[in-house]
């Protein structure tokens, strides 16, 4: 039941901690914009609300969909833009 969700929270927290500790400090800004994009996953909850047959839910859902999409699209695009800039100089 609900205890299973708490299991997931705690285990995912540990995985997150271990994975993010290994992220190189050089990429901390892209890390932040990447986690931003990933947290745009709340879009899936917003989609269900916006696509329901209840008017209040539709309006709340619509705003939520817009906000979450900004994060998903903008977040991934800007992360890519930043990562493209990190180049290694070829030694002549």
């Amino acid at each position: 039941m609900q205890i299973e969700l708490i299991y997931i929270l705690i285990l995912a927290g540990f995985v997150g901690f271990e994975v993010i500790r290994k992220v190189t400090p050089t990429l901390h800004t892209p890390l932040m914009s990447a986690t931003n994009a990933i947290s745009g996953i709340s879009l899936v909850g917003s989609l269900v609300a916006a696509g329901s047959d209840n008017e209040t839910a539709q309006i709340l859902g619509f705003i939520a969909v817009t906000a979450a999409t900004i994060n998903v699209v903008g977040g991934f695009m800007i992360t890519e833009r930043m990562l493209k800039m990190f180049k290694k100089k070829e030694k002549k």
Partner: protein
Amino acid sequence: MNYLTEVVYLIASVLFILGLKGLSHPETARRGMHFAEIGMLMAIVGTLVSGHIVTWTWIITGVAIGSAIGAAMAIFMPMTAMPQRIALSHAFGALAAVLVGVNEYIEKGGHGELSNFLMSAIGFEVLFGALTVTGSLMAFGKLSELVKSAPITYKGQNFVNITLFFTAFGMFVYLIFFPYNPVIFYTMIGLSLLIGVFLVLPIGGADMPVVISLMNSYAGLAIAATGFAIDNKVLIIAGSLDGASGFILSIIMSQAMNRSFANVLFGAVGSSQVDAGNLAEERPITRVGIEDTKFILEQADRVVIVPGYGMAVAQAQHTVRELSDELDKHGIAVEFAIHPVAGRMPGHMNVLLAEANISYDQLLEMETINPTMDSVDVCIIIGANDVVNPAARTDKSSPIYGMPIIDVDKARTVIVMKRSMATGFAGIENPLFYAPNTKMLFGDAKKVLQELVAEFKK
């Protein structure tokens, strides 16, 4: 939730983790992001075909508007404005969480299905979500100078903030046991919005890296709580990753500034800016000109450049690259030593230098470069002050005592490029400027660098 959707969400979760894992090295980072993007696409498509959707108008409109705004922000936002953009997106993410929470409250409340567990999840979600929305907007305002970036303080501020927080928290606890009370529910959201504003009001521009990281963490927690509220595991996992990331970054930033969380949130350091320059002219300093600087650099084998936020403000990173190229032509090894709080958010300086085409293997962290500092011939400091202040190591009475710094004073020669003798953000006198091996090169960073590059090209 049908079986197939669950499987899709599970794969998406794995792809998110692989995506973040890729960020452990610049070479694997882009591939990692592609994983995460595929995961996101799968999760979205999986939701759309799950059979829960009955109307499409609002979805299509929302996705279209969101994509347009998101893409525009991603394409046109300059890299110096990255902290503002990130702050804004925390506000968007938290807003989505709050609205989903409110919707869940209305819907489940209407059916009389608000269990204690569900109400805890929704309460937590809107409480943290709402204060993240306004807190991040305040941070955005301060970073983009729409709001005064200096700390705004008044008497009894901490008392007001703590009272507000406990009132909101009390309402949250009340709602867990008596969920069907919309007045309390919406009042709690209102209070939480206020808390967000008041929380960031007393925090100054230099402390923004901690605030942004903290808001990142809160936004993640709000998303994870959303996962509990709507029984969706991929939200819990993505939210936990986001929360953990923000938390780790906040710790790194606080440590780099020699501050505790509590101190950043309640300390309002920087409000008592010391009037600069009183002490400054009394002790002798050694000035140096452009030509001599060139002469000193030519004699060096190993040069380390320490950039600070002043460099970014002067938009001098491209000129710094040119200087680095010139030194490279003379066979001089150039490295960049980057303090964790050199920019306005974690890793900001690295992005600015990468944008100027500086190779990432030349960007070294403080911990890597410090042990080798004695073998550095010349250290050039551009627009940095507190992060190279040796008082942090030696002077127990200094407010920054104990703060990790880049040990530039151990280099054979130190050249400080500075506009004037003014103190840094913390308003602290810097003994480095008076050290016998330090030479001061006054002027606007960009102009001085341009002249220096021109001198090399002669």
